[in-house]
């Protein structure tokens, strides 16, 4: 009474092939949906893909460990993709030279402020320590943030989701907020967007203005570096 369909499922569910194909296929479909929405920040392809994959795992009764055995090939690329941030950073060196002081000052204050404001509010509202530590690198691009969370004892999976949520929030808020504050300096606006909400904020900044986008990308890379160096100093004693 062996069911050939069931046997096939047992085989596929345990092989990396199925979960790799599902992850990449869903991401491509989500990117298509995001494009159709005119790249609205709320229609985030990463968020859509995570929700769809979680639902598929739930519906098929697949454990995260089984899924990750396949998806780890994609996860591994986080490392080299993080190193790759050096290239846009190198290309921005003239920009850094021209605006060195405002860049350094806003980085020196913005990077710790992003960490301390989020963790401070969470502690005041009685959040569990695992939540507080997962919040530390929430403004940093996910590749670096997941590494930082692991270093200081936060939950990397939770950090990945908090990073995406912060990116979407910043991308949605930044333009109305800056307009309300009557700030017309697109270098400053872009730098704030990239420092606060990393790649998702940078993508949003490029839609508004190319100067803003360039400064946002620069802020994203610099804040990744600054937070990676500061987070263990400020929060390292927890772990």
């Amino acid at each position, binding site marked *: 009474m062996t069911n050939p369909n069931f046997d096939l499922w047992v085989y596929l569910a345990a092989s990396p092939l199925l979960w790799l194909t599902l992850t*990449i296929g869903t*991401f491509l479909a989500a990117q298509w949906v995001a494009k159709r929405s005119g790249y609205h920040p709320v229609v985030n392809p*990463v968020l859509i893909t*995570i929700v769809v994959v*979680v639902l598929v*795992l739930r519906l098929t009764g697949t454990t*995260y460990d089984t*899924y990750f055995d396949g*998806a*780890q090939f*994609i*996860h591994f*690329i986080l*490392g*080299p*993709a*993080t*190193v*790759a*941030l*050096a*290239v846009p950073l*190198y290309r921005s060196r003239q920009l850094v030279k021209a*605006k060195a*002081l*405002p860049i350094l*000052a*806003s980085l020196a*204050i*913005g990077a710790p402020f992003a960490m301390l*404001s*989020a963790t401070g509010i*969470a502690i005041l*509202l*009685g*959040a*569990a320590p695992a*939540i507080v530590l997962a919040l530390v690198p*929430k*403004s940093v691009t*996910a*590749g670096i943030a997941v*590494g930082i969370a*692991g270093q*200081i004892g936060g939950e*990397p*999976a939770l950090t*990945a*989701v908090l990073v*995406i*949520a912060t990116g979407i*929030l*910043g991308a949605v*808020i*930044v333009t109305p*907020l800056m307009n309300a504050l009557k700030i017309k*300096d697109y270098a400053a606006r872009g730098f*704030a967007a990239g420092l606060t909400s990393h*790649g998702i904020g940078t993508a949003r900044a490029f839609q508004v203005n190319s100067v803003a986008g360039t400064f946002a990308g620069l802020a994203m890379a610099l804040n*990744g570096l600054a937070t990676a160096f500061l987070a263990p100093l400020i929060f390292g004693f927890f772990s």
Partner: protein
Amino acid sequence: MLFGLFILLACQLAGEIIARGMGLPIPGPVIGIVLLLALLAIQGWRQGAASAETGPVAKSADGLLANLGLVFIPAGVGISQNYQLVFDNGLALVAALVVSTVLTLIVTVAVFRFVSRLLPAKETQP
């Protein structure tokens, strides 16, 4: 393409060795960024900036960065193991994210504007 990927992996590997070997609490790939930046600066200085900006390493880096979103999906799906934690701390999480995001945007833009204004006005916009 392969050479570019090799350099990216080699920088990450060197970063991991430095981080773990010296007991530094910094992710290996972050040290890898600094190492690659130094390599690009040396290449730019010896062969001209254009070769560092468009060489094989830059091409591989651009290819990876264009699909950056994909690489954090496996980690993000891990949220399926943390439902209870998120649910129990929902209010604190939402408040921390929203308030911190708004305040960080304001503080960063304010510092940037403030220090820009202190500088000699050689390239101020109208």
